[in-house]
């Protein structure tokens, strides 16, 4: 019997409201017990018990001074495999996830071929079978991401897809989005919206405003996102489908989501660490590492997103981990690909917001554990006796500097190079197995 004993840690599980010192015993990949230090009974494998410190073959982690949380869940990862393995593979992407404290990632469908049928879904799941993070594919809404014909959602669900999305591309045709939201109700599959009205975004490459004017780059106004979020909320209201709005970046979208939730619409939303920490002023040096979709907005938008996460309007913090190679990024600004990597910096950036008083620690952890699980209907994101032992151990005091060359991700495209952060995952445990340990300096 494989045993793991995590002792003396501060357990924080926002889903159950637990915040205190607990010893956790893990047996055969599942949580066997959670008890106050030294109180574990024989049966549950407390200290001295069968599964505890004294037990044969047990591994002990002393989490004294450390924070123990449910394994982090990222609703928005691009693993790039199949098709773009030079940017990232399931192997390198999940290694990055584990290093960032994530035990579950949802990977987007814009691969080559597109994940719009069961065989691609099964391929991804098979390749991820031994990965250090659980991979839940997101299937496409439309065949080939072309926005014309719905995918066979029954097959996608059966093969293991956790949601559907044409992410990277909006579902431009409102009629098709309506049908997607309607049809997905059969399987209770959330529809993740990449909210962008392309006819308004035009050829924009950054936020439209004073900075784009100064730089002479074409801008994308907030209205591009706001109008699409409004449309999708109206369609969710009409159909009863489950809408999840990806990478919210505008204050208008936050307001629309807040109002929709008040009316009882089944809508959830996510914001990324980069949209919560950077604004359009960061683009002044034309560094393509700051080019992303949606673009970095103005400080008022950043403030609204922060408030949205703090009050629960924005349920989740998701990375939109989008690895690219230098072929896509080391080029002229207009030609550069959108996106930044995020799996290995997310927790540190979110803890910076906690440190700065923007978010409560429990709110931040909730946005990265139980809320993403709830948004996608996953049985995860909380630690209960009997549940799979996905656990992340965090050192809140650990100071580190963002160095892309040390990323496990193949993508080095981060806007945070050189940032000094405090707090990082020091151990990531998936199904009771330690899949990542941060090296001691």
């Amino acid at each position, binding site marked *: 019997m494989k045993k793991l004993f995590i002792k003396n840690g501060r357990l924080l599980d926002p889903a159950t409201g637990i915040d205190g010192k607990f010893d956790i015993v893990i047996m055969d990949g599942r949580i066997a017990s959670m008890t106050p230090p030294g109180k574990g009974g024989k049966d549950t494998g407390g200290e001295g018990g069968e599964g505890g410190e004294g037990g044969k073959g047990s591994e002990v982690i002393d989490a004294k001074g450390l924070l123990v949380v449910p394994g982090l869940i990222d609703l928005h990862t691009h693993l790039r495999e199949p098709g773009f393995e030079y940017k990232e593979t399931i192997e390198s992407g999940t290694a990055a996830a584990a290093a960032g404290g994530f035990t579950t990632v949802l990977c987007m469908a814009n691969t080559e071929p597109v994940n719009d049928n069961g065989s691609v879904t099964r391929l991804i799941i098979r390749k991820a079978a031994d990965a250090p993070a659980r991979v839940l594919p997101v299937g496409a809404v439309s065949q080939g991401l072309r926005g014309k014909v719905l995918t066979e959602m029954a097959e996608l669900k059966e093969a293991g897809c956790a949601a559907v999305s044409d992410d990277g591309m909006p579902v431009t045709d409102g009629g098709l989005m309506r049908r997607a939201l309607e049809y997905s109700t059969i399987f209770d599959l959330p529809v993740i919206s990449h909210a962008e009205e392309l006819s308004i975004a035009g050829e924009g490459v950054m936020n439209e405003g004073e900075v784009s*004017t100064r730089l*002479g*780059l074409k*801008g994308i106004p907030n209205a591009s996102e706001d109008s699409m979020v409004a449309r999708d909320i109206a369609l969710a209201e009409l159909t009863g489908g489950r809408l999840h709005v990806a990478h919210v970046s505008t204050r208008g979208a936050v307001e629309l989501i807040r109002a929709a939730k008040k009316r009882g619409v089944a809508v959830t939303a996510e914001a990324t660490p980069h949209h919560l920490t950077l604004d359009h002023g960061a683009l002044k040096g034309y560094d393509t590492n700051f080019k992303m979709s949606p673009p970095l907005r103005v400080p008022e938008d950043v403030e609204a997103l922060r408030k949205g996460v703090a009050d629960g309007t924005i349920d989740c913090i998701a990375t939109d981990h989008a690895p690219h190679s230098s072929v896509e990024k080391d*080029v*002229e600004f207009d*030609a550069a690909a959108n996106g930044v990597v995020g799996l290995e910096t997310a927790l540190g950036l979110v803890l910076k917001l906690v440190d700065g008083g923007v978010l409560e620690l429990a709110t931040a952890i909730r946005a990265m554990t139980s809320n993403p699980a709830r948004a996608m209907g996953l049985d995860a994101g909380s630690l209960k006796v009997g549940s799979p032992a996905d656990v992340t151990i965090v050192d809140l005091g650990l100071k580190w500097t963002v160095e892309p060359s040390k990323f496990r991700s193949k993508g080095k495209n981060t806007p945070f190079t050189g940032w000094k952060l405090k707090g990082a995952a020091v151990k990531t445990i998936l199904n009771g197995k330690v899949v*990542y340990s941060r090296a001691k300096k």
Partner: protein
Amino acid sequence: MKLEKKDLLGIEELTKEEIELILSTAESFKEVSERDIKKVPTLRGKTVINLFYEPSTRTRTSFEIAAKRMSADAINISVAASSVKKGETLKDTALNLEAMRPDCIVIRHPVAGTPAMLAGYLDSAVINAGDGAHEHPSQALLDILTVREKLGRIEGVKLVIAGDILHSRVARSNIIGFTKLGAEVRVCSPPTMMPPGIEALGCKAFTDMDEAIKDADVIMMLRIQLERQKSAFFPSVREYSRLYGLNATRLKKAPKDVIILHPGPMNRGVEISPEVADGPWSLILDQVTNGLAVRMALFYLLLGGPKPNYPRERRKPDRVSFDEGDAA
């Protein structure tokens, strides 16, 4: 005195004193072009590459003649902007050119920020000859020189820049340059061609042409790209011309001694009528003459004397480290 810079990427990065230095140097070089033998040995042995990703006969020729009048060797390279596709990137091109040890690369590119990117990779001086809708610093310098010659000052001058402000690098460089020297700058265009937040650059925005020019000292007309009509920036050339074109009738609403500039090439009969373009108010050809002097001054100030060792930030690609060692 020298310009303490490796590159000239925009007017924004120049101080008032540096602008004055370039202008006074340009004034002294004007005389060279009036000589019978129009050549000085100042930059003998230096190599200038004109790397143009957009067709531009006049700017490229101006840089080429300027380099040759200073005795530098000028090489022209015209390329289609193709690095969007996989293959040789702009960076590859830059590093290959660098390997041939030029002293200066003059670059025009349709994407804003590209000269800045190039400057990060190169030891040679980089001069921005126009990047997207960002900056065209030598154009602004020649415009300032032209106005200063005619009016004797820039401080307090009321300048109107009219036309497609949204897509104009000339407008941005001129707004920044003229306001830096104390001029009052107004921009005038239909709202569809007025970039958001333009007033943060220090100018005032107008949509009514008559209102904008009524007490102007200088009116600078911008070339309208006729294909913008297809993108619905304006309904028709006829209506654009009626609302924003500068003809003799409209000119009567401006002060009598107003001067007219146009960075060229002009759409005669669209943004400017022939009688205005060729009339006594027009300094359009003086601009061209001054452009040559400004570019000679830039070469002289950036390339004259031994190569300085300025600290600069290079955008080197990150090297992937393989000695990770801290995996579980």
